[in-house]
């Protein structure tokens, strides 16, 4: 669990549609970037990387509830275009197996696609800054996962899934139904204003509590993922250094 799979039933419809729309757009961009390539070569690469991500998730990590993702490594190996499509493929399969919601495949793909893109970008930038590939890969992993977790939190905060917002809307509806028509108007406004401040305070509190849980649980996941990705990068760099060649000309 180095990143969270957002389940169904949390995110409001407009955000679900926005997630699907943005993912579709980015998939179009990725397809366009891959247009000149031999499809018979690209498809197996994406498929194999997707399978590897799924495989890594099944590895028995001896810490409760955690699993590997290899999204950052996918970015390092495949680059952003192939990597983003692989992230979509993995999220589609995961959603079907109840890992992450079906309706939020778009948003989950954006979060894991971001990890892929950051992995590629950071690996390219940090590879020469560190002597050992292990360190460059591990640092890239931690930074990418930290950012993607923050984005996920941003989605949760931005989508107003916080119940304070829902309650706030609910309060307005109830007030509209139960308020006395004219003479009690000031009283209602005052009550609305108090409710508003109270709800906003609760929202911040809930979000802070949620962020604390996510960051503290996530930090363990990032460390695990960083250690494994670092070891893989070190191993590949010794055996097949061309696979992790960070030169920009090699991939999109």
């Amino acid at each position, binding site marked *: 669990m180095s990143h*969270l799979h957002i*389940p*169904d*039933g*949390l995110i409001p419809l407009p955000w679900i549609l926005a997630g699907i729309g943005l993912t579709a757009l980015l*998939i179009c961009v990725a*397809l366009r970037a*891959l247009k000149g390539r031999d*499809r*018979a070569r*690209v*498809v*197996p690469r994406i*498929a*194999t*990387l*997707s399978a*590897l991500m*799924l*495989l890594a998730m*099944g*590895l028995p*990590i*001896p*810490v409760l*509830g955690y*699993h590997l993702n290899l999204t950052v490594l996918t970015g390092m190996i495949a680059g952003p275009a192939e990597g983003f499509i692989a992230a*979509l*493929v*993995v999220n*589609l*399969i*995961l959603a*079907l*197996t*109840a*890992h992450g*919601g*079906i*309706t939020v495949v778009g948003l989950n793909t954006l979060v894991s696609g971001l990890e892929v893109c950051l992995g590629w970008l950071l690996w390219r930038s940090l590879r020469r800054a560190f002597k050992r590939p292990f360190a460059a890969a591990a640092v890239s992993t931690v930074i990418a996962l930290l950012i993607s977790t923050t984005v996920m939190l941003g989605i949760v905060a931005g989508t107003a899934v*916080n*119940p304070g917002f829902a*309650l706030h809307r609910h309060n307005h509806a109830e007030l509209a139904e139960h308020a006395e028509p004219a003479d009690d108007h000031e009283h209602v406004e005052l009550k609305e204003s108090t409710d508003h401040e109270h709800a906003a305070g*609760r*929202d911040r*509190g*809930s979000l802070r*509590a*949620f*962020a604390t849980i996510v960051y503290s649980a996530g930090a363990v996941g990032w460390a*695990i993922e960083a*250690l*494994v990705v*670092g*070891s*893989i990068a*070190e*191993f*590949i760099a010794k055996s097949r250094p061309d*696979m992790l060649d960070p030169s920009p000309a090699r991939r999109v």
Partner: protein
Amino acid sequence: MDVQFIDELAANGRTPLHDALPWAKIAASAALLAASIAARTPSAAGAAAAAVILFASASRGQLRHATAMALYPVFFAGLFALGWIRSSPLYALTVVIRAFSTGLVAATLITTTPFVDIFAAISRITPALVSDALFMAYRSFFVLVNELQDLLRAVRLRGGAGRSLMEQLRTYGQVLGVVILHSADMTERMYRVMIVRGYSQRIQSAREWPPPRPLDYLLIAYAMTVLGLVLALR
């Protein structure tokens, strides 16, 4: 998540849900998913969950496997809900129930319908490259999982992955490194096979379905009724 086991359940199961046509199960699942998400209160979410359990119970003995799978999103929803448990416990409860229902819908669908049939439906709405990658990823998974299992067995026979968590994770990293190197060779072989077979920008996945039977209509009618009731309660 054990994709192999899920595939076995879907391919070899003999229950009324396995007998239903894939498109009918997909349509019914979509309606039940919508009903679960549309439920706004704990009681409505509970009613939707009960309807989903009834639907899933048509898969007989497989219900317990699907339920176990559905507990995974409950864990994640629980994390989300923890943040709200003090400010809005009812909302937190609704979120957790919804996650269970939607997880059970997905788990029931995937344990009673072969992946290939579901991918065929998905391929109608995704670009060819994505759907081809989806089919091949699934196939590649089964090739690579055998290799990973062999490597892990070899590690265990040589004394295990290590005593400390650090050592174990490093060993896992190296094992995965070996699998990745082999997967690169596999990619090359797949490329040659695709060229030899005359890959023409799309893997054909369409299949002829038999005509729908009463069971298929019953599934859809049931799911639509549940969705209608949940929407009416809103």
